[in-house]
């Protein structure tokens, strides 16, 4: 089969289409995912191809979407539901925490909830209020839930397929800033990216940059600039936030002795804290410098005109690299 050159939106769409074709139990629903094909067009064409029973609009009701999906999943279906923006995710968080995350445990394995929640996350597209937040740590702190986030079209398709076939509930975060940011070759075939495995996307020897989603590209660009200054950066794309692949991350930092974690979410009690803490705890005496965190600030995500002031970018990552290497 040939490869196609796709955006992240198109890669997710391909993954959904192929999984719907493979497994008649896959149903896709959420607000505006049917006729409209989703506000970001991720589900475009699915209703046409598979009919209204496989891909359809739900009422405007996030808890309703997840709560019914839990029932569907227990009774043998494979719901892949969309929360239109992660900023509205907390409307369904009680269902996630009290039920989706716990049903396997509560029933000692009799009932499981193999569903996927897709939701666009993060800033960078100058959207309205509540449309640019990064809530990954809330989800990742929850035992029973897996949280993945791709940073490329290739990974997006592969992680989505893995998520759909996973026996447990998976939250599939889509960095909306990358939806159409670039294209990449994506195989037509079936493949998957294992959940729980980070990826070393660039090898280097001086310092490890750790990021996920849209921040991976900022690291990439900062690393290119750093190279000009003679600094060799290794880049870890975390890909799965929970369960976190500390093994890969730690091995990299063991080698480089220095690390920077980059995320959009606000700093305090953010996901970077766990990574920094774990690195320090596990590599005490090995680390040459304290871990740096380049993050969003402890403020409400600013509206469109000022959102850049909060968002970590290449420049801030590069400054951090220079600081750590100094």
């Amino acid at each position: 089969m040939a490869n196609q050159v796709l955006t992240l939106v198109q890669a997710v769409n391909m993954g959904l289409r192929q999984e719907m074709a493979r497994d008649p139990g896959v149903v896709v629903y959420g607000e505006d995912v049917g006729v409209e094909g989703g506000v970001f067009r991720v589900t475009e064409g699915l209703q046409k191809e598979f009919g209204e029973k496989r891909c359809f609009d739900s009422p405007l009701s996030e808890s309703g979407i997840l709560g019914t999906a839990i029932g569907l999943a227990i009774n043998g279906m494979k719901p892949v539901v969309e929360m239109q923006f992660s900023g509205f995710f907390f409307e369904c968080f009680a269902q996630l925490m009290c039920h989706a995350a716990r049903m396997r445990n509560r029933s000692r394995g009799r009932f499981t909830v193999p569903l996927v929640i897709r939701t666009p996350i993060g800033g960078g597209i100058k959207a309205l209020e509540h449309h640019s937040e990064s809530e990954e740590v809330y989800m990742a702190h929850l035992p029973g839930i897996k949280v993945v986030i791709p940073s490329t079209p290739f990974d997006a398709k592969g992680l989505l397929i893995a998520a759909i076939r996973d026996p447990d509930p998976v939250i599939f975060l889509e960095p909306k800033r990358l939806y159409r940011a670039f294209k990449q070759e994506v195989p037509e075939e079936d493949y998957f990216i294992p959940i729980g495995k980070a990826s070393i996307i660039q090898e280097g020897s001086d310092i490890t940059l750790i990021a996920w989603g849209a921040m991976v590209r900022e690291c990439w660009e900062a690393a290119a600039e750093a190279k000009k200054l003679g600094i060799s950066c290794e880049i870890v794309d975390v890909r799965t936030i929970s369960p976190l692949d500390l093994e890969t991350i730690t091995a990299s930092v063991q080698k480089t002795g220095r690390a920077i974690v980059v995320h959009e979410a606000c700093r305090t009690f953010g996901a970077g804290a766990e990574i920094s803490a774990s690195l320090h705890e596990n590599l005490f005496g090995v680390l040459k410098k304290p871990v740096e965190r380049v993050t969003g600030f402890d403020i409400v995500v600013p509206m469109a005109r000022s959102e850049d002031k909060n968002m970590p970018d290449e420049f801030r990552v590069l400054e951090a690299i220079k600081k750590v290497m100094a």
Partner: protein
Amino acid sequence: MFLDKFDPLKGQMVQILDEEGNHKEDLLPKELTPEVVKGLYEKILFVRLTNERVLKLQRQGRMGTFASIRGQEACQIGSEYAIEKSDWIVPAFREHGAIWAHGVPMDKVLLYWRGNEEGSHIPDGVNVLPPSIPVGSQMLHAVGLSWAAKMRGEKQIAVTYFGDGATSEGDFHEAMNFAGVFKTPTIFICQNNQYAISVPRSNQTASKTLAQKAIAYNMPGVLVDGNDLFAMYAVTKEAADRARRGDGATLIEAYTYRLDDHTTSDDSTKYRQKSEVESWVPRDPMTRLQKYLTKVKIWNQKYEDELKEKFTKEIDTIVEKIESAPDQTLEQLFGYTYAQMTPQQQKQLEYVHSIEAARATATEGGTNG
């Protein structure tokens, strides 16, 4: 027949068997023969005796916090009898009657309230979800379960139980709305037992009945005497047939009363008058069944005494079973979070094993340190 004839806006309530044990012949479903009623009465008696025993065990410190169902047995046994074993039951936490009748062994029920996860390990083949403590959250699961069957063209339906308090939660609304929009084969049974802990029904919502809330979703809603086994059976049966026919969901308000405290942690004398409780005693669902069964020459004191003796022994066995049931192991506590343990969990499990070993050694040694 009930769904379109009894209008909750007019305050009409379905009752077939009254407090004196008299029944309305025209409304009585044929299938409720004396023999069948006898079987259901025996279930109610068993459930009530178990409930009593648990309350006693709890006072002796042999049980955890427990939610009594005394007074609500007919709601549960009647409605459960109206559905197939292949149908789903999605309970709140006060439905031991319904879930046991549907196939959950009573020792599971008791283990749950004893605080052992094995109690919510529903046996294979029994279509009942574990109790749901977060009020109002479970009805959405029933919508999803029954919707799955509908999607596959199967005839399975789901019944979900919840309290009067649960109707105030947003999830009740979202569940009813989904059921309305997607015409799912779901039966919503609200056991209006007049209280949500200490809060009386009248402070929970301004609407005169809970059944009328169905109007917001273009769904039939019907008010039923929840202490009337016959009415509960008959109305649930109609709703089940309707659901199976593809005509969608129904809301049933079962008007009943919680005769005991909310749970064993509660003291209901703080918020309700003894006289109120007493006024409900004659409306006890068991009493009127005894009267009915007396008329059809099934019930007499000897019958009752023999049953009680038999059930008491059965309950003894159950209690022995749960009191000797092993607690959950560390492997079990970690092992069901995901299909596979995470690396973090593996490390933590190793750690806790080593801690527990050290603790054992320390305890043996008589000191901690």
